[in-house]
């Protein structure tokens, strides 16, 4: 058994890290808005957020390939701005993963924000906290458990998913070949031993990280609402 190439693992971690960070940045205001809006459009937006999920990943990947290719408006803009194509690049993978994992971020966050409710925010406003301050220092920590769920689901899902990534990124070793694709390729090419090794490494690594995350979280129990 040869030691497997770990570059795909690192690439996956980079991808999942970026995607999760961007998802939190984009998902938080969206979830916040959904949790607090009284707009009649709310159910529609909620549904749209969940929609990417129902398409098979490769198919979604195909549509993204069309939408992000340099001949599309979005892909064209990106190429004009950066000089590179968005498809078959790391940036493209990040965009695709963000889109696909959006519901895993937005839904738990929205649900957490709804449970926090208005009472603690009102209390914070009466302590001179601005809306942003209220969000950062009251709503977010009270929604910590929701953030944990969002992060774990989004991160793990980005690590594991390969259909979208394979389509948009093209399985280019060192550039877009993430670990899920590498394992997939090993299985497809009968390289079962390599697949087992890589899977085991991925599982053990994920397990250790997750146990760490959950054990830490446990020491900071979060209580809802106001006491």
């Amino acid at each position, binding site marked *: 058994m040869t030691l497997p190439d770990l570059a795909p693992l690192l690439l996956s971690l980079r991808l999942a890290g970026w995607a999760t960070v961007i998802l939190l940045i984009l998902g938080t205001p969206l979830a916040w808005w959904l949790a607090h809006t009284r707009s009649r459009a709310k159910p529609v937006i909620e549904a749209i957020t969940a929609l990417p999920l129902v398409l098979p990943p*490769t198919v979604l990947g*195909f549509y993204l*390939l*069309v939408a992000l*290719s*340099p*001949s599309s408006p979005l892909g064209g803009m990106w190429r004009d701005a950066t000089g590179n*194509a968005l*498809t*078959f690049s790391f940036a493209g993978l990040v965009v695709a993963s963000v889109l696909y994992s959006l519901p895993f971020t937005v839904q738990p966050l929205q649900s957490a924000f709804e449970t926090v409710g208005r009472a603690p925010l009102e209390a914070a406003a009466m302590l001179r906290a601005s809306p942003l301050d209220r969000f950062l220092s009251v709503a977010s920590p009270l929604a910590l458990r929701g953030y944990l769920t969002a992060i774990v689901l989004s991160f793990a899902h980005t690590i594991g998913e390969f259909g979208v990534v*394979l*389509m948009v990124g*093209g*399985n*280019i*070793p*060192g550039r877009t*070949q993430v670990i899920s694709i590498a394992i997939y*390729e090993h*299985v*497809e*090419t*009968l*390289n*079962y031993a390599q697949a087992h090794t890589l899977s085991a490494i991925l599982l053990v690594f994920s397990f250790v990280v997750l146990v760490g995350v959950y054990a830490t979280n446990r020491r900071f129990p979060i209580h809802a609402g106001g006491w």
Partner: protein
Amino acid sequence: AAESALIAVAANFAETAQSLAPAFNAETGHELTLTIGSTGKLYAQITKGAPFDALLAADQERPRRLLEEGHAVPGTRRTYATGQLVLWSPDPDRIGQNGEETLANGDFEHLAMANPDLAPYGLAAAQALDHMGLRDRLSDRIVMGQNIGQTFSMVATGNAALGLVAGSYAASPRNTAPGSVWPVPTAYHDPIRQDAVLLAVGADNAAARAFLDYLHSDAAREVITRFGYGVEDPQ
């Protein structure tokens, strides 16, 4: 001067290509990076601007269309290998001298084959079953993988007793259970011709061009045959 090329390879040929690349590098100094996928996916990606220099497809159809649509360099399409369909079981006693009988007597729960719509081996398998007049009889025992790798897994894990798979997989050194094999007579189905083509992106890539030529060298043909493919006579 040595260049590097990104070669898109159909999954069934991946293992073979991986053995060819170092030898090619030793001989020419060119660096190859292989990207492996299903032919359909690779086609879609190429039409959307994938940076692949050459394609080693699993069929003739997709390279032909790429040429038609201007994504490939005219005059570079050539068959680099011919697939061999085999009936395989990891059980050494399962398949006798005549696999046709093994199929016909039907004491198995599932027969795995690739999806004829997706994979050339699947199409060949369907044609062979038709030829033997078994397709209807076996239809509710057939399970399908989306490509030949998955089909092979279904058999290798013991979930399907028999599979119509690529000879290259059954013969692969990675296959730990050679079991019993019956090569399906080539007359039972259209030939499984796998074409390679130089893509528009790689039109000026010397490494890609050199690799396409290298596929027809004696050294390469020896490797390709060893992996269970047929090769055409050099013109």
